[in-house]
């Protein structure tokens, strides 16, 4: 974007301030100032450290500096939204620097779930000029009475880390909130700040205000002049992209990415990269500050332990992940900024956020699962923009070696994987509609158009909208017994509003809930009571422990003493050997994009010299003893081992998709009579074992896409995944409240199990809105049906069958997973039977 870099764009006060700091305003910062002057919405894509946040705020600071002193108190001028509470607080601190140094009369305040009551009330009556907050708070604002008044002066809304926010339910709710703000302040301009992404246009579409173009204008009664004219349902929308200008920050030079080659030692299976930890330690010694990324909290704890075991030089190495207590995280972050740490082992909580100053090197332990994610992590390192950022990938096993090489090449070619466009979730819309009703009465058609101006809801049908409103009002049941209990009612004036204050208050207590797994606080046991909080852990993690078991958390060993309410109580057990329940696997599955590259690399022998000798040899032996599939084919091996017959296939579609596929295949195999006994999956392959041989099966028939019809439906309906998805939708949509006035109910004691409701609803109204939502969630999030479908159609007619009489090199990694893998799916009856059998045996024995 060629720009006249003359500082006439910047007022003197600002130009002087830059000069006093020894800085020159960057091109993208000036571009953003220009956009501000033009009143244009913009998406800024820049790596961290390029003054991105300042670029977002500069236009607002300039406007506020130049604004004449108001006679009456003004509303919020600029709203800043970030996905992390910590970020909002951090930005507040950083923003005060230019404001104080320039002597600007601008008030800045942050507001998160942690902000105290007194401060919140003050913010309501004396709005700050700049308010820094989170999307959850925005959802609450939308439900305020008087929200329209509060935001009518809003000039700009800044969404930070927008690349991480938009593709999720959280992003859906945010988009709806932005549409609401746009109604309150039609001239509002939007600013998105993003890391490097594959397709910026997707974010531009999401961010766009999507002004409706009138074809035949019909102003509604009572419309204020400044409101955009709206039409009835079905009016066309202009393509959103054009409303949002793209500004590209000066990128860092291309990152230098290497793959750690551990000659002769790359393990066949595993996720922890334990074999490479000595090498990693040596690398840490040679650099000033290193960030070590892992994919799961479990890996983080493990890597941290290993490094300290090797830490003969007593280097300051820290641990940082989302489950640690906020206080401890702050301490680590502060030490980082002061340059006191040589290395930090961290998870994706550090994918976002705070600019940490001088990081020399980023190490990724175990494959990154996606090139985009890797680039964003690399972006954390090195803020001397003229020098390339450096990163080292450390594969945890042989397949990962291929994956890391593929990722390395993808990054080099700047070919990143992207997110698919999103359709807005309807349970989120329900929550939003309720919030609107709590704020002020609404007209159905007007709200429909407003909702459709939000990116993810552009294609929302009128029918679906009515279904959602009906749901909000009475629960949306075919049996109309709840009409007298309506939560929102249509008045004489034709406008919908909330039934009463009590209902509105209950909504505000539960708003913004985008459900995460039930988390328990981990607290130190002090005498008989719960003491200091050490962090948080998922409920499911503790389910594997019995009282008295030891486990690792926050870098130390603890003894699990029990759970009371929301607290898991522990006492220190420093000299014990921890029991290490495996938990979490990899949160991320191998991206489709990387998978394709890996398949290509396996087949293309010219690419092999880049690999270490033992991996090369592994590929060669596989080629000689079995087969190497081409990029388009899927390899399927059958062999017998011991008393079991194995079928192993290698779709490379990621663990989630493989688990779904394995469940469905098992059902089919049962019908053929081969007697399937179990299965195991990883990102590359799945293995099923059975009583009888499988090599004569018709594989084309077995892998037929019709598996995704009745078999999928039947399995899905019964599955615990649907129940889990339903619970999430029930909470988000407002069907179930997490919090009641006067009773702070812990998530665990939700008044009754949503499973009970799910079962009843499934039997009596199978087409209910929430069942639809749950199915969509389960199909995408948990079992990746779309991916399975694409794969089945890709391999149709292209299955290469290799029947051998021994274990093959490729099969070793997946076979090693047997026994480590937790059994998924419907094991409830099995568990009960086994425990009961023990008792019976005892009784008879």
């Amino acid at each position, binding site marked *: 974007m060629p720009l006249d870099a003359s500082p006439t764009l910047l007022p003197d006060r600002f130009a002087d301030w830059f000069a006093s700091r020894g800085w020159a305003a960057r091109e993208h910062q000036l571009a953003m100032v220009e956009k501000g002057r033009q009143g244009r919405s913009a998406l800024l894509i820049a790596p961290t450290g390029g003054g991105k946040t300042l670029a977002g705020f500069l236009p607002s600071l300039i406007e506020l500096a130049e604004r004449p002193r108001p006679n009456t108190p003004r509303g919020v001028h600029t709203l800043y939204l970030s996905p992390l509470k910590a970020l909002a607080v951090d930005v507040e601190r950083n923003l005060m620097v230019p404001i104080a140094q320039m002597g600007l009369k601008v008030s800045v305040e942050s507001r998160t779930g942690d902000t105290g009551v007194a401060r919140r009330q003050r913010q309501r009556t004396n709005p700050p000029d700049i308010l820094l907050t989170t999307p959850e708070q925005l959802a609450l604002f939308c439900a305020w009475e008087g929200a329209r008044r509060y935001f009518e002066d809003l000039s700009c809304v800044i969404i930070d880390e927008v690349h991480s926010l938009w593709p999720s339910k959280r992003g859906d709710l945010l988009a709806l909130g932005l549409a609401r703000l746009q109604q309150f302040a039609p001239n509002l301009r939007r600013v998105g700040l993003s890391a490097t992404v594959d397709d910026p246009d997707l974010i531009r579409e999401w961010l766009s205000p999507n002004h409706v173009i009138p074809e035949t204008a019909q102003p509604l009664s009572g419309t204020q002049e400044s409101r955009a004219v709206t039409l009835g349902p079905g009016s066309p929308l202009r393509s959103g992209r054009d409303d949002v200008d793209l500004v590209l920050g000066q990128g860092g030079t291309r990152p230098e990415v290497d793959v750690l080659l551990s000659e002769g030692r790359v393990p066949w299976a595993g996720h922890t990269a334990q074999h490479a930890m000595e090498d990693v330690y040596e690398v840490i010694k040679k650099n000033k500050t290193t960030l070590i990324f892992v994919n799961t909290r479990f890996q983080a704890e493990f890597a941290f332990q290993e490094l300290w075991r090797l830490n003969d030089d007593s280097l300051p190495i820290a641990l940082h992940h989302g489950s640690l207590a906020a206080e401890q995280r702050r301490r680590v972050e502060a030490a980082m900024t002061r340059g006191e740490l040589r290395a930090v082992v961290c998870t994706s909580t550090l994918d976002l956020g705070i600019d940490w100053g001088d990081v020399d090197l980023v190490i990724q332990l175990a494959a990154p699962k996606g090139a985009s994610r890797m680039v964003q992590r690399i972006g954390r390192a090195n803020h001397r923009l003229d020098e390339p950022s450096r990163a080292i990938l450390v594969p945890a096993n042989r397949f990962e070696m291929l994956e890391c090489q593929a990722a390395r090449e993808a990054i080099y070619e700047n070919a990143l994987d992207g997110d698919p466009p999103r359709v807005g979730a309807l349970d989120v819309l329900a929550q939003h509609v309720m919030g609107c009703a709590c704020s002020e009465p609404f007209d159905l058609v007007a709200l429909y158009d407003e909702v459709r101006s939000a990116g993810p809801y552009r294609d929302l049908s009128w029918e679906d909208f009515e279904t959602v409103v009906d749901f909000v009002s*009475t*629960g949306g*049941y075919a*049996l109309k*017994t*709840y009409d007298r*209990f309506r*939560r929102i009612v249509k008045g004489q004036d034709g406008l919908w509003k909330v039934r009463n204050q*009590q*209902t509105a208050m*209950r909504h505000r207590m539960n708003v913004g809930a985008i459900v995460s797994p039930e988390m328990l606080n981990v607290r130190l046991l002090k005498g008989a009571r719960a003491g200091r909080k050490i962090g948080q852990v998922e409920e499911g993690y503790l*389910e*594997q422990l*019995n009282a008295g078991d030891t486990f690792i958390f926050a870098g130390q060993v603890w003894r699990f003493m*029990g*759970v009371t309410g929301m607290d898991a109580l522990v006492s220190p057990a420093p000299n014990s050997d921890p029991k290490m*329940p495996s938990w979490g696997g990899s949160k991320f599955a191998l991206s489709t994009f990387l998978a394709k590259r890996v398949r290509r690399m396996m087949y293309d022998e010219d690419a092999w010299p880049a690999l270490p000798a033992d991996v090369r040899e592994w590929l060669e032996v596989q080629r000689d003893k079995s087969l190497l599939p081409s990029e388009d084919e899927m390899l399927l091996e059958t062999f017998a081992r011991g008393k079991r017959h194995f079928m192993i296939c290698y779709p490379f579609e990621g663990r989630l998709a493989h688990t779904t596929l394995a469940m469905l295949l098992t059902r089919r195999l049962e019908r053929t009579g081969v007697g399937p006994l179990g299965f195991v999956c990883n990102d590359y392959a799945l293995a099923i074992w059975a009583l009888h041989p499988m090599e004569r099966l018709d594989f084309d028939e077995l892998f037929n896409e019709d598996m995704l019809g009745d078999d999928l439906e039947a399995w899905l309906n019964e599955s615990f995944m649907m129940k889990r998805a339903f619970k999430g939708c029930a909470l988000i949509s407002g*069907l*179930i*409240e997490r919090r009641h006035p006067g009773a702070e109910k812990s998530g*665990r004691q939700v*008044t*009754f*199990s949503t499973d*009970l*409701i799910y*079962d*009843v*609803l499934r*039997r*009596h*109204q199978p087409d*209910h809105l929430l069942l639809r939502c749950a199915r969509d969630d389960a199909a995408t999030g948990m079992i990746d049906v779309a991916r399975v479908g694409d794969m089945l159609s890709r391999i149709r007619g292209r299955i290469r069958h290799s029947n051998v009489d021994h274990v093959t090199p490729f099969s070793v990694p997946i076979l090693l997973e047997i026994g480590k893998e*937790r*059994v998924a799916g419907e*094991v*409830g*009856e*099995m*568990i*009960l*039977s*086994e*425990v*009961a059998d*023990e*008792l*019976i045996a*005892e*009784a008879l024995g």
Partner: protein
Amino acid sequence: MTAIPKVMHDFAISACGGLAMNVNGDEVLMRCSGAAWLAGSRTLIVADLHFEKGSAYARRGQMLPPYDTRETLNRLEAEVAATQPAVLVFLGDSFHDGQGEDRLHGDDGARIAALAAGRTLAWVVGNHDADGPKALPGETVDELVFGQLTLRHEPQEGSRPGELAGHLHPAAKVKGRGRTVRRRCFVTDGSRMVLPAFGSYAGGLNIKDKAFAGLFGVRPLAGALGTGRVHPIGWGSLAPD
């Protein structure tokens, strides 16, 4: 529970998958549905039906699906058809609250009434519905005695041999294979028994909760409701919440 004697319980698995055990000398069959069956008197006992719990919550703004009464009746009718009882006992908390009966919808009321036809229908009253039904057939009682067994809604303090009660909604939590399973259950020590809640939305309270403390003189057995089977689970295999 602090150390109470461990004992081998004598039970048998019936053809229907249920669990039969003597309580105070009389045999009680714990059926897979959560109903209890006394073969001698052909008595079917269901506890804590909580009819119209869905609508009770809807009145307060949580719009639970209004199908719970219907669903409970479906299961109840199936049990009645399978066992052909001479006596049908509702062991208390049959309606979720005092106005539940007024909120009955469609033919639900008629279906409940029909259950009284050709047999004795007894409503044992509990804390939620202390006066019994207003317009529905059947006899309202505080307690019922069958042989060595006394049926009442809420378990009483102290040693109560022969007591069959509800009210507590017992549930068993079992761990295995790295996961937990939670099911409604019967719980008995051979002297007294607490029945699971039969109502569709009734839910369960872990029997290791202190609400159950002091009821049993020896470590009780849990009969966990499975699919087609009632699983006998020893006290040592149970996990608290």
